[in-house]
């Protein structure tokens, strides 16, 4: 049994603190770990027995807690955890405020008891004690305190996950560039201030240097959102260290050309889809040979929505495995950004395309994109469905970017001498694979890395030419299913991580 106590003194009257925290549904307004909260069944937040459902600020994790007691005289409430993504068993917590009559302040005591696996005790005590209780103290202190935080090292945190500037700013026409000494331009971008949830993305002023040799400076017109941005944000991929700017796909206009750049000039429309990250910004300076000139008949939005996913589909279907007529392929997340392109393109190559999608709306979308056999995974086990569709043979290639939740079953869905292509892990880190088990099907496994297939200007040209050819001929369509102003990129991340998006998502300026 772990007994955890955290307490503090807030320099505000006890009734003010109680008013801020009393309602069981109020945490979303003040606690930095809580992105959203609802009371289930339409009950009131001070109804003992009510259940609150939290969405944590990672935009994904859900937990449910039941109000067990509320006492306005003692200024206390007690609650228990009923569902959580972490192993806290029998977790019961009590919040209690006491007045400090000497100075009209508040003593706040937050304590809990729970059991947990001994190996995770230290980690969970830290998570609950610091991440929940102490973080809550600091948020209320910042909000209500008459004096700055007295706690050493307690940096004030930005109150909530909302963008730090009015969203209307993002819809304003591009402001005239403010030039600085040395040719740098003052601009703005969404800076990742730390690895973490969507709230780490903050609007900040940034300086865009004058282009050096081989570089150009761009003004973005549309930016593509990709799951790799989420991996970079959480730190799963160490492509960007905070403070830094995420984003690997955009379209824009060349505004300045550095020495030694050939074939690009001011006013040219270009796109890119590659590291290094830095697209979540109004302007950037980058190497000219990473850019793809955009043909007149390819709109900026299409390029921003389709370059990365389209080039991904291109190398997955042409290079990682050369898909040919008569192949049967399984595409996971067939209604998603890359998924819809794999379906269209796979069918164009003559393959039979089976796809998985969650729910009738997404299966319909997969079918519209060329998936001959959409499987609704909310109703059907895809392994059994693939067995039925292929008469027990399995698929020649499985394209799996879902990862943890599907990878083992994807192997089951493979044909003998099939090829499992794992190109992402949207549902979580991949388990260790049982290589010996691959002998059971003489299976082949690939874990392609985007950068290795798009690492040279020649490779980018080849892949983008194929993409533009398909778009121009009409057998390939890229749909920006939704767009968000760049300043609201945190919301876009939440939508992407909670599987609420369809097709591609773009950020507008």
């Amino acid at each position, binding site marked *: 049994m772990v007994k955890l*106590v955290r*307490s*503090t*003194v807030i320099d505000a009257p006890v009734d003010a603190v109680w008013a801020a925290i009393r309602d069981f549904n109020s945490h979303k307004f003040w606690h930095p770990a809580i992105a959203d909260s609802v009371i289930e069944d339409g009950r009131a937040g001070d109804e003992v027995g009510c259940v609150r459902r939290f969405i944590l600020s990672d935009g994904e994790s859900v937990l449910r807690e039941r109000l067990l007691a509320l006492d306005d005289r003692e200024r206390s409430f007690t609650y228990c955890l009923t569902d959580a993504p972490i192993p806290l068993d029998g977790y019961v917590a009590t919040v209690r405020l*006491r007045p*400090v*009559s*000497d*100075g009209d302040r508040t*003593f706040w005591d937050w304590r809990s008891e729970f059991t947990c696996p001994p190996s995770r005790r230290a980690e969970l005590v830290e998570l609950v004690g610091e991440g929940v209780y102490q973080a809550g103290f600091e948020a209320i202190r910042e909000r209500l305190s008459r004096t700055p935080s007295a706690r050493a090292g307690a940096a004030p945190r930005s109150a909530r996950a909302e963008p730090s500037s009015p969203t209307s700013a993002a819809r304003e026409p591009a402001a005239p560039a403010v030039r600085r000494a040395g040719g740098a331009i003052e601009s703005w971008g969404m800076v990742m201030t730390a690895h973490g949830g969507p709230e780490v993305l903050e609007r900040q002023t940034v300086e865009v240097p004058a282009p050096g040799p081989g570089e150009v400076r761009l003004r973005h017109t549309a930016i593509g959102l990709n799951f790799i941005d989420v991996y970079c944000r959480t730190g799963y991929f160490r492509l960007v260290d905070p403070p830094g700017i995420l984003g690997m796909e955009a379209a824009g206009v060349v505004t300045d050309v550095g020495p030694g750049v050939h074939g690009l000039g001011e006013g040219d429309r270009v796109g890119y889809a590659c590291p290094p990250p830095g697209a979540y910004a109004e302007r950037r300076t980058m190497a000219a040979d990473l850019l793809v000139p955009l043909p007149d008949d390819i709109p900026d939005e299409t390029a921003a929505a389709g370059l990365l996913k389209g080039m991904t589909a291109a190398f997955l279907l042409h290079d990682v495995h050369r898909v040919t007529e008569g192949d049967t392929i399984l595409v996971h997340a067939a209604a998603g950004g890359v998924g819809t392109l794999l379906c269209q393109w796979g069918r164009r190559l003559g393959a039979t395309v089976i796809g998985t999608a969650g729910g009738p709306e997404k299966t319909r979308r997969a079918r519209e994109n060329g998936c001959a056999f959409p499987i609704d995974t909310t109703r059907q086990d895809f392994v059994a469905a693939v067995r039925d569709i292929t008469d027990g043979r399995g698929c020649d290639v499985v394209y799996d970017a879902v990862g943890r939740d599907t990878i083992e079953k994807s192997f089951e869905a493979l044909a003998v001498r099939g090829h499992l292509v794992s190109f992402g892990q949207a549902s979580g880190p991949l388990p260790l694979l049982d290589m010996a088990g691959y002998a059971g099907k003489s299976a082949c496994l690939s874990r392609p890395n985007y950068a290795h297939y798009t690492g040279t200007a020649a490779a980018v040209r080849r892949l983008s030419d194929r993409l533009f050819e398909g778009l121009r001929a009409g057998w390939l369509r890229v749909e920006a299913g939704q767009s968000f102003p760049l300043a609201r990129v945190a919301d876009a991340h939440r939508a992407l991580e909670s599987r609420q998006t369809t097709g591609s998502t773009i950020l507008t300026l």
Partner: protein
Amino acid sequence: MVKVYTSSVIGAPADRVWRVVRDFNGLPDWHPAIAESRIENGVPSDRVGCIRNFTLKDGGRIREQLLALSDFDYSFRYSILESPMGVTDYIADFRLLPVTDGDQCFAEWTAEFDCAPEREGELAELVGQGVFQGGFDALKQRFGAA
């Protein structure tokens, strides 16, 4: 029934403050209003049920009985058996609570008693400010305010 509530924040961890205030015979060591104190019948001062007999600096004499003592909760409870104040059924609780994010503790001192109705305000002030806050001020002077 009069209820008095006084609380403060003392600039030292609860266990350090507790070592000073725990001794039921130790009031003269830290409370400015107390001149001298003894435990009746020679029993230890942490024996629940013991009676302290002390003299105020203004000459009054008070007898109080220890009703509860908790080293786990940093708390004690006592009643007044005899005093010149004119109170009956007087029970007081003292408690320290750690403040985990700083080297300080929260101190709470409460009392309930009966008295003549016209003296309620005066006695609440005497107990809450004179006795309790006076004690807290002395502790803050000794350990630091917070």
